[in-house]
């Protein structure tokens, strides 16, 4: 791919709600044609960042431009340029599935026969043709989500922002959404998305950032992030309860993240390597390939959020 100018440029972007800092002066780019992932635990600042990109929420400070347009001055033009899928579907229960699309297209100046033709085209692409006349309330969660994504494509945007497009879907629906996003990506659509599914991010994203407490902790391709923060492999060590403590101490001292799972200790590698474990019988150690989830947990910790 030819290196292109960024479609989104964020420099020292900040969002505060009274004293709470939701996004803490982050800097990142989204390049034309790429799929860009925002990963982070609940409350990390993903949604706030995406809402600022979509000109739904104004930044407190910093620079942010989309398609070369400044969010402070060209909110309307940016919203015309983007397709947006928010965390809540925001579908209209008073309208049929098809009319949800047609009504929304009107806000972009697409109306009449062309809007109807486009609605049928989009319904077809998202496998919703059979549901066109259904009330939105009668659709399953997966169908609703697909309809929401379909709605974002009515005006043929060259970039879409998707906030957790697959949260709450069953594996079939989720995979269906992934396939459809992959087709759109092939067609050159720039995608910025947030997700909790690491396999989703690993499969779809060209580049991603991991954010927590409003700050970027890691940035790169999924492979780069895994290698840097979880190494090539992760060790699972089954040791007797008595031998655990000294091992945890020595591994921690050597800079590894060690997690006690109760039945086993989990140690991620780092900087592209697998962890080096000393003083434990080799038969008690097994290795598996490190994943994005390992890197994510190593970076953001294991304590529960939303509490």
């Amino acid at each position: 791919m030819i290196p292109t100018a960024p479609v989104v440029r964020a420099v020292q972007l900040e969002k505060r709600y009274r004293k709470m800092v939701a996004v803490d002066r982050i800097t990142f780019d989204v390049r034309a044609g790429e799929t860009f992932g925002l990963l982070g635990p609940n409350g990390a600042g993903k949604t706030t960042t995406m809402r600022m990109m979509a000109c739904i929420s104004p930044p407190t400070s910093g620079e942010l431009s989309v398609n070369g347009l400044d969010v402070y001055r060209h909110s309307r033009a940016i919203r015309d340029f983007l397709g947006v899928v928010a965390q809540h579907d925001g579908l209209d229960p008073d309208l049929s599935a098809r009319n949800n699309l047609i009504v929304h297209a009107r806000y972009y100046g697409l109306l009449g026969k062309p809007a109807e033709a486009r609605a049928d085209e989009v319904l077809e692409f998202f496998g919703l043709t059979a549901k066109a006349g259904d009330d939105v309330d009668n659709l399953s969660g997966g169908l609703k989500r697909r309809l929401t994504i379909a709605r974002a494509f009515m005006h043929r945007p060259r970039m879409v922002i998707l906030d957790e497009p697959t949260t709450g879907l069953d594996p079939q629906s989720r995979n269906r959404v992934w396939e459809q996003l992959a087709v759109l990506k092939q067609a050159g659509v720039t995608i910025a998305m947030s997700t909790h599914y690491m396999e989703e991010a690993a499969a779809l994203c060209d580049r991603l950032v991991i954010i927590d407490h409003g700050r970027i902790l890691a940035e790169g391709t999924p492979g780069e992030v895994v290698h840097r923060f979880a190494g090539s492999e992760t060790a699972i060590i089954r040791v007797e309860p008595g031998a655990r403590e000294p091992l945890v101490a020595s591994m921690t001292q050597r800079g590894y993240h060690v997690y006690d799972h109760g039945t086993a200790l989990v140690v991620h590698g780092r900087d592209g390597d697998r962890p080096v474990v000393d003083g434990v019988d080799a038969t008690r150690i097994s290795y598996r390939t490190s994943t994005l989830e390992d890197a994510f947990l190593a970076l953001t910790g294991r304590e529960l959020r939303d509490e």
Partner: protein
Amino acid sequence: MTTLAASGRADLRIRNVVAIWMRHFTAFKKGYLIESTGILVEPVLILMAVGFGIGRLVGEVSDVSYAVFVAPGIVVGNAMWHALFECSWGAFRRMQLHRIYDSILSAPVSIPELAAGEIAWGATRALMTTVAVLAAAAAFGLIESPWGLGVVFVGILTGLVFGGMGLFFASIAPTTHSLTLVFTLVGTPLFFFGGVFFPVESLPGFLEPVARAMPLTPAVQAARGFATGSVGLREVYSILYLALLAMLFYPLATWRLRRRLVI
């Protein structure tokens, strides 16, 4: 925040106001049979029961039969209910329960356009019920003057006032539960003390000026003037007062909506 807000305030695109209105019209078409009961059947039942039933006991009020007296008030009172309900409960449901405003505002639509579309639809509903009930009243012989067509104009104006007021209440209501206060503490007192059923002059002295200042009272005054063919300075003032209220509530609702939605 102000800069982003300013970009929306700078230009009001009628195309987008029409798009919002079209959303409502599309939804309305689907359920028009049920809607017609609220637009026509219920108010006509009230008109018959009060106008002819109670009217027989009352006799004449202000030199006309009670049915003639009460009909224009019921027409615009009903216009108030429709606009108020649509733009408070209906708008709150769209904004809070279904998050439709979020979807609309992610498109290139501004908050003033959204608010204008909502209020325009509230006024459209007021217009529909005004025309329907006015026609029924005329069929009953309760509209005495061709000036009665002017009630349609008063109905639209009433819709704009209460659409704006309803949207304002929707934008400040924390819950659906609190929104019921709009009906119990606003709609009902205005309907029963705004001159629909008895002349405000018959209220105790200290209450009369209060009743006159209430926003439904001038609508009833103007509608009654048109329906009986006696349009004077008082009716003109009433219409000006309504226009003033409409122009007040629209920016007020827009301001509160922005505070609620742009965070």
